[in-house]
């Protein structure tokens, strides 16, 4: 019995060895499916673009290949199918992940484009602002230049006005100078005329001008009392001639002429006033006859007023009897 059991045990061991040998023989045989699967996985691993992608699916594929290696009998066909599909899935998943990464990259690229566009817009806005600033500066400079031109023009105009005023003043001055020269010439002429008259006076003392004296701004010609007949207002011929020459001199003037008659203190005042008035009137008529305008002449009788000498003596009374021709 023991020998039978020992033979059975040996037979079982032999059977196991046979199985093992068969298995070893099977693994040693060429396996094109396994080679193809491993080649596919190696290609996937060695692809630089896909090497790190689809990790989960790649793991499942390796597990499936391993199961295919160890699968036997009826399960071998199922394991091969699964391994093929898992490897294919790993390849597809890696490519899908690669494309997904590319899509993300495209999103980032889109963001970069938008950012670049924004920067470009900002740059353009900055450039436009700078251009506007420069244009503004140019406009300001133009405005200042125009303002300066206006100021210059105004200054030139003012200068021109000043020149014109100066010219006008110079012209006025020249006119005044010309007038002064004309007056000077006129005065010279009058002086010559006066000298001529005076020269003619020297010929005959009876035709001499009445004596003249200055009283303030006025010239006072005094016609002595002997120019009239005693107690009368009739001028002597000598006095008339003298007044005629005086009128010739006074014609060139423009001032008013007062004619005032005076008497001595003898006699009634009323009579003296009346006599002095008549004598003044007579002188006025003589001067008008000599060519003087009546508008310039005014005659008045003062009587014994304003004596110039002592009425106590004949010589004094003779001096008080007079007619004064006051030229303003």
């Amino acid at each position, binding site marked *: 019995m023991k020998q039978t059991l020992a033979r059975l045990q040996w037979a079982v061991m032999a059977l196991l060895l046979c199985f093992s040998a068969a298995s070893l023989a099977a693994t040693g045989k060429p396996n094109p499916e396994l080679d193809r699967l491993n080649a596919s996985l190696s290609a996937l691993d060695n692809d630089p673009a896909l090497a790190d992608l689809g990790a989960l699916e790649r793991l499942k594929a390796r597990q499936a290949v391993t199961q295919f290696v160890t699968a036997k009998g009826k399960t071998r066909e199922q394991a091969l199918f699964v391994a093929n599909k898992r490897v*294919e899935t790993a390849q597809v*998943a890696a490519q899908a992940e690669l*494309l997904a990464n590319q899509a993300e990259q495209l999103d980032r690229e*889109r963001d970069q*484009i938008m950012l670049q566009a924004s920067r470009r817009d900002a740059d353009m806005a900055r450039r436009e602002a700078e251009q506007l600033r420069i244009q503004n500066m140019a406009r300001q400079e133009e405005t200042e230049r125009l303002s300066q031109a206006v100021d210059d023009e105004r200054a030139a105009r003012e200068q021109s006005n000043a020149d014109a005023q100066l010219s006008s003043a110079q012209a006025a001055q020249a006119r005044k100078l010309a007038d002064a020269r004309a007056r000077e010439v006129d005065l010279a002429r009058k002086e010559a005329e006066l000298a001529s008259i005076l020269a003619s006076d020297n010929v005959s003392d009876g035709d001499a001008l009445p004596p003249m004296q200055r009283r303030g701004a006025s010239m006072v010609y005094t016609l002595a009392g002997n120019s009239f007949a005693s107690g009368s207002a009739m001028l002597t011929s000598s006095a008339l001639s003298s007044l005629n020459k005086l009128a010739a001199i006074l014609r060139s003037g423009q001032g008013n002429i007062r004619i005032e008659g005076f008497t001595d203190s003898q006699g009634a005042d009323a009579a003296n006033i009346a006599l002095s008035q008549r004598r003044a009137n007579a002188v006025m008529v003589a001067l008008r006859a000599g060519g003087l305008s009546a508008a310039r002449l005014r005659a008045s009788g003062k009587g014994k007023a304003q004596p110039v000498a002592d009425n106590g003596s004949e010589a004094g009374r003779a001096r008080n009897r007079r007619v004064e021709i006051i030229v303003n």
Partner: protein
Amino acid sequence: MTLSTLKIHMVLAFLLASTSVWAAEPPAAELSAAQMAIAQAERASPKGTAAQSLQIAKSAFTEAQALNDKRKYKDAASLAYRAQVMAELAKAQAELANARMDVDEKSARNADLRRQLLVNTER
């Protein structure tokens, strides 16, 4: 160990093995996993980009269900796993197609943006 004892052991081992085959459970987990994988593949492929693989997965799943109904649980489990593997392949193919379309669209969009925003503003 006597010969009779060995015979008894062998008979018991045979019976144990037979019991384990005939008493196999329905492959509910495999069927469920396959069904879930098919649903995911369908969601990933709304435009039918992986129609062929998905169709194979669905056919395998249908056949697995039929075998399951016939209590051929081992074959049903095997086919359900095939259906799951095919569905996962279909999902990966759909994702690849979607990613390719996405890349194409975004490339075109970027080119358009570049032309509109950058090239047209060149002065």
